């Protein structure tokens, strides 16, 4: 078995982000890491939107990002810390739109190891050096400089190691142009490790240490080290140094230098041998708050403005605090803190000079805000260190009195844009519909959780929708002159006439357009400089700017059946299968070519491309004939109307469109001319037209729908594209240099045209039935359209019902109080006459999150979701501190196959170690057609039920270490059989026949058989390697595909003979007495395939994504990855694609310098799986390399590209 891995949707989380002027012009950009991808975002200050400039896979895990700028430079460089054991400095090349690796310095082993640097990065604010640190001990300092040619240089590393020290955070200290200084938060464990009494452990101090890079001696020294708060977690740079400006020169101190030490509950200002300042972090004024829980700062940013600076710090609940330092030159007078606003908890805060704030959320959608004000003159309480004795440091070991604020809706920030993110996907399901597949995903964490329905297609924004008197069959938009910016006319063709509408404030009919209104229109075109043209069945009308009409009439008795136009050329086909060719001359006169060309077969479709810039005409004409041929005919003056080439097609063509589009896989510099041929059977052929000899080559086919294809040449975001209309509408466009073909998530269209108007720039106009639609496609990068339904708590699992269309979803949140628990607490408080601030309890959880509670407190509910309408049908909250962990729809044969919903819950659950006061199996009956539930009974269990499954008319439950079989009783579920031999906990269950595949939490998949005569559940096979199972699916009776917690996906198979032997044993006595192997089951499965995806797979399913296509494995990753594993069918395919992969590996595409083979074989060597994501980079390689690799494979470049596309399209339709 060989698999081909393809990512359909890449991870959408942003673990790190950094702001900088990477392209070197004045505009700031945001460089974000998507975990295993690097993406450059550019904010558009006018529109307030973020757009993607460049994305690149790194084939490694990015752990940290930083930016620096050499002194006096204008361009920022990016530094990548990763798991490659190398530090990489990248430059963004704006001209080529690529990342250029300037330096790649190896310093250690690969992998996210304890003492190999890469975890944290710090840079000197003046760009003279950088520090890269591990979690423990190792810190390396590199000196950055310029050589004589002003190129960046990097030194060999200098060590700043401290053995047996855990490093919490590092930051570069701003010291102006003195020797670069770094601050580190370190804890030394050496003493604690040698003291059995535990006293040294309690006395261990967290040290704030300053390391100085002596540029003169080229040496790093530990300059200063002092204990600080034991719960410190983050350091923030404070501006320092001085600037000289003006004439006469004035020396101004920029700031006091030093660092802010963010601790739990406090912020401390600290600098070498300077007095400290401490302020408390204000807490939410919440009556139910857990006082023992500290406030932790999770992200921070310092921002400089002209002559001033401030800090934004964010707590883990998402509250932003503005922190300011009052200082006289280098002496700090006071440290002040106040509440600013509340946004999603972020992994980084990115402030842009344009006054924007980018929030890459830890979970869920990422946000782009604009600062309205800086919270300078509001009534928010400000806490200053000057108000506390000894600047808050009188007694550093004691906390300061708690400070409070009232959270409120956004005041200082305004939301401008949102980047959709699926992170985290916790459960998912694929539904295969005839025209497209739907992905249902349960995403998110806590109150920001969502249930999302994803449909393959570009999102469409509708700008207008108006009814028409009858059903038109085609639409055009026209400019009046060549230089018009916007379109003025809409031409609608009906069966018996034509309607011309104006396009402006209001859409209304134009009576004197010069177009014939009593005939349908075949083509409409803005011609030459300022004329317009209409082709109708009886002739051609050339309307000049002064409304004079030059008319050409079709010969008597004949009609025009097809027409094609561009700015200077018109070709019409007559009902006698003759072609008539017209061309515009220099005087603006349309001249007929003296000869007509007989085609011999009725012409169905015609197309001529746009006139290339600076030329008189487009040289080729494509003609589609009824005899199932497409012919290319020359329009060159030397050989006018001579046939050049002919292509036979499988059905009569219905529409042809020639478009020049940029496809960098074919030609990186010039657009390629594509002949798109739509057939009457719904198939689209895309062929490349050789511009020099007119030959057709490299045909790709695609099935679009079950209606004849209609093609329209359009503009998509300013570049040429093609709109293909069948039973679905598809858009063919160039994005990031490559041609894409994506359906529109929109109603079926009968005709369309592109529109450029004031209210709808870069838009489209379409007809659907008797309505006229004006719409836009705002985001070309997003190929999945999302419909979002908000949830209350973190979703855990969901199941579908075999008979109705509802989903039954369980949600549970740890450290969250259920509404009933809150009500109870409030009642108790009110009984004891405490004042309860109701307003604070009613804050919207979606913005402010749920109220935090101690560990072991749970809120949970069961939700019925209507996925068709994206609506919640019913919600059942669980009380009694119960949390739901598993759910299944089970047909019980004891109740003659009645379907019941079983939910596995546990009360007072503790996570580590996993305990609960009692587990429960709740059995619900479906009422009101499944839109409501009725609790039948609850059965107690001794552990948490982590997995449930219907099995032979009974319930199979994984309850802690036990696998049990239950039957339904009147008041309880009745335990029928049990096996307690599982290692930790049964988390996944799959079944076929009497075989059960049970996934253990950390011991991979067990093969279990149920022997009915003896009523035994017997383990007969397991995996030889221990794996932390997260998801599993059976591929066939003996084979399972599963995934583990470290981002691997693998396929295991049981030997056929063992399988047979087990099935033939009627009682299972043989298995029972077999000798165990490797302290496990008597038989072992064999690993067939193995692959490291780089994201934790939470859900895996076997499904066909394309109607009539083969089944593939679809997986969903925690960080939002959606990918497929395609089984390769032929040996040729395997040979071809694995050789291609081998060649691609040698190209070293990884931006972090990770070896591809070692990345895909992170924990176990990659086996029998080809990385399609890497292979698809073939399209982006330089032409010479493409040719060389294709030569090695004995194919042409076009063949390789075609094969890659067909693998993607036939398996996924994407």
């Amino acid at each position, binding site marked *: 078995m060989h698999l081909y891995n393809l990512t359909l949707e890449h991870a959408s989380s942003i673990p790190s982000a950094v702001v900088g002027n990477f392209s070197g012009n004045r505009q700031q950009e945001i460089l974000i890491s998507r975990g295993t991808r690097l993406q450059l975002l550019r904010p558009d200050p006018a529109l307030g939107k973020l757009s993607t400039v460049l994305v690149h896979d790194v084939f490694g895990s990015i752990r940290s990002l930083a930016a620096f700028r050499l002194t006096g430079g204008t361009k920022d460089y990016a530094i990548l810390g990763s798991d490659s054991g190398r530090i990489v400095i990248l430059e963004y090349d704006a001209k080529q739109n690529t990342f250029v690796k300037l330096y790649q310095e190896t310093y250690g082993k690969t992998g996210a*190891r304890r003492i190999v640097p890469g975890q944290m990065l710090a840079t000197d604010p003046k760009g003279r050096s950088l520090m890269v640190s591990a979690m423990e001990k190792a810190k390396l300092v590199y000196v950055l400089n310029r050589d004589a040619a002003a190129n960046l240089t990097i030194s060999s590393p200098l060590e700043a190691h401290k053995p047996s020290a855990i490093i919490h955070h590092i930051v570069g200290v701003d010291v102006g142009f003195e020797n670069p200084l770094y601050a580190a938060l370190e804890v030394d464990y050496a003493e604690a490790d040698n003291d*059995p009494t535990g006293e040294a452990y309690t006395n261990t101090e967290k040290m704030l240490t300053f390391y100085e890079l002596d540029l003169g001696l080229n040496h790093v020294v530990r300059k200063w080290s002092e204990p600080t708060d034991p719960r410190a977690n983050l350091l923030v740079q404070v501006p320092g140094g001085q600037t000289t400006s003006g004439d006469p020169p004035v020396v101004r101190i920029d700031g006091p230098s030093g660092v802010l030490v963010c601790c739990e509950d406090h912020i401390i200002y600290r600098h070498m041998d300077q007095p400290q300042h401490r302020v408390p972090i204000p807490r939410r004024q919440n009556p139910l708050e857990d006082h023992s829980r500290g406030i932790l700062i999770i992200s921070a940013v310092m921002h400089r403005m002209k002559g001033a600076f401030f800090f934004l710090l964010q707590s883990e609940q998402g509250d932003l605090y503005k922190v300011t330092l009052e200082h006289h030159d280098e002496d700090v007078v006071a440290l002040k803190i106040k509440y600013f606003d509340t946004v999603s908890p972020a992994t980084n805060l990115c402030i842009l000079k344009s006054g924007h704030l980018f929030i890459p959320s830890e979970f869920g959608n990422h946000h782009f805000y604009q600062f309205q004000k800086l919270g300078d003159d509001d009534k928010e309480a400000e806490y200053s260190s000057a108000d506390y004795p000894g600047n808050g440091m009188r007694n550093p070991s004691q906390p300061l009195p708690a400070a409070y604020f009232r959270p409120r809706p956004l005041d200082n920030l305004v939301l401008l844009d949102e980047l959709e993110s699926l992170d985290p996907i916790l459960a998912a399901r694929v539904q295969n519909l005839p025209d497209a597949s739907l992905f249902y995903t349960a995403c998110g964490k806590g109150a920001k959780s969502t249930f999302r329905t994803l449909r393959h297609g570009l999102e469409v924004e509708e700008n207008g929708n108006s009814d028409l008197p009858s059903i038109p069959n085609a639409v055009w938009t026209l400019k009046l002159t060549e230089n018009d910016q916007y379109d003025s006319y809409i031409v609608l063709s009906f069966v018996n006439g034509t309607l011309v509408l104006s396009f402006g404030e209001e859409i209304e009919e134009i009576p004197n357009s010069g177009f014939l209104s009593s005939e349908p229109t075949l083509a409409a075109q803005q011609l030459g400089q300022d004329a317009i043209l209409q082709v109708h069945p009886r002739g051609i009308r050339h309307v000049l700017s002064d409304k004079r009409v030059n008319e050409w009439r079709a010969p008597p008795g004949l009609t025009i059946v097809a027409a094609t136009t561009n700015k200077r050329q018109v070709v019409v086909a007559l009902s006698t299968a003759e072609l008539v060719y017209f061309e515009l001359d220099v005087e603006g006169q349309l001249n007929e070519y003296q000869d007509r060309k007989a085609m011999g077969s009725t012409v169905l479709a015609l197309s001529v491309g746009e006139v290339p810039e600076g030329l008189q005409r487009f040289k080729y004409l494509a003609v589609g004939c009824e005899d199932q041929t497409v012919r290319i005919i020359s329009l060159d003056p030397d050989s006018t109307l001579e046939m050049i080439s002919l292509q036979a097609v499988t059905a009569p063509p219905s529409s042809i469109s020639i478009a020049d589009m940029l496809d960098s896989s074919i030609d990186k510099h010039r657009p390629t001319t594509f002949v798109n041929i739509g057939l009457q059977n719904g198939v689209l052929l895309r062929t490349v037209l050789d511009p020099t000899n007119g030959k057709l080559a490299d045909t790709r086919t695609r099935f679009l729908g079950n209606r004849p294809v209609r093609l329209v040449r359009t503009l998509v975001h300013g570049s040429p594209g093609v709109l293909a209309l069948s039973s679905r509408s598809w858009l063919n466009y160039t994005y990031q240099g490559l041609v894409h073909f994506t359906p529109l998530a929109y109603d079926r269209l009968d005709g369309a045209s592109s529109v450029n108007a004031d209210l709808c720039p870069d838009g489209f106009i379409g007809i659907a039935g008797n309505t006229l639609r004006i719409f836009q496609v705002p985001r070309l990068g997003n190929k999945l359209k999302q419909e979002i339904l908000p949830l209350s708590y973190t979703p855990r699992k969901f199941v579908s019902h075999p008979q109705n269309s509802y989903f039954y979803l369980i949600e549970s949140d740890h*450290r969250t109080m259920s509404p009933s628990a809150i009500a109870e607490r409030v009642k108790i408080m009110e009984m004891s006459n405490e004042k309860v601030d109701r307003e604070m309890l009613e804050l919207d959880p979606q913005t402010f999150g749920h109220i935090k509670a101690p560990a072991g407190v749970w809120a949970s509910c069961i939700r019925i979701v209507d996925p068709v309408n994206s609506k919640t049908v019913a919600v059942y909250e669980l009380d009694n501190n119960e949390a739901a962990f598993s759910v299944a729809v089970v047909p019980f044969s004891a109740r003659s196959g009645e379907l019941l919903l079983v939910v596995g819950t546990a009360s007072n659950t503790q996570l580590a170690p996993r305990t609960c006061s009692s587990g429960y199996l709740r059995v619900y009956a479906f009422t009101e057609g499944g839109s409501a539930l009725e609790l039948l009974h609850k059965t107690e269990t001794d552990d948490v039920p982590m997995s449930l499954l219907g099995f032979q008319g009974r319930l199979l439950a994984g309850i802690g270490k036990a696998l049990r079989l239950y039957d339904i009783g009147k008041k309880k579920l009745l335990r029928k059989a049990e096996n307690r031999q599982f290692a930790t906990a049964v988390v996944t269950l799959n079944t076929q026949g009497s075989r059960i595949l049970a996934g253990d939490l950390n011991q991979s998949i067990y093969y279990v058989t149920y022997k009915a005569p003896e009523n035994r559940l017997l383990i007969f096979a397991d995996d030889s390697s221990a794996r932390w199972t997260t998801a599993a699916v059976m591929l066939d009776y003996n084979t399972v595909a599963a995934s583990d917690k470290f981002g691997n996906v693998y396929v295991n198979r049981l030997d056929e003979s063992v399988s047979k032997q087990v099935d033939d044993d009627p009682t299972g006595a043989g298995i029972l007495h077999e000798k165990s192997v490797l302290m496990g089951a008597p038989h072992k499965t064999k690993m067939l395939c193995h692959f490291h995806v780089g994201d934790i797979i939470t859900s895996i399913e076997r499904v066909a994504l394309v109607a009539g296509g083969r089944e593939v494995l679809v997986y969903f990753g925690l*960080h939002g990855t959606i990918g497929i594993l395609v089984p390769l069918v032929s040996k040729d395919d395997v040979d071809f694609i694995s050789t291609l992969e081998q060649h691609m590996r040698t190209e070293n595409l990884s931006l972090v310098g990770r070896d591809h083979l070692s990345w895909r074989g992170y924990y176990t060597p990659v086996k029998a799986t080809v990385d399609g994501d890497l292979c698809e980079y073939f399209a982006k390689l330089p032409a010479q390399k493409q040719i060389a690799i294709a030569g090695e494979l004995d194919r042409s470049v076009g063949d390789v590209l075609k094969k890659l596309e067909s693998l993607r399209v036939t398996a996924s339709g994407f």
Partner: protein
Amino acid sequence: MSSELRYTANTQLEHLHARYTGTGHADLTKWEWATHQHRDTLSSIVGHPTLTSYLAVADGESIGRIRFEMAEKMLQPCGPPPQKQD
């Protein structure tokens, strides 16, 4: 093996142990081994963004908090060392 050679081999090993924290040796105690294992695991969790997310979702905490608590735990993940017996 001459005593001199044994001496140099030993110093080399010591040097390697000092250089590569977490490397085991023949006399490693159970506690030392477990402590190394835990520290390796904890730093690996902090180093993999997917694992921190995974734990954060399970525990209902923020990623920032998980990272901090994991780093804190590295100080003494398996309790104090056992009393030395001669």
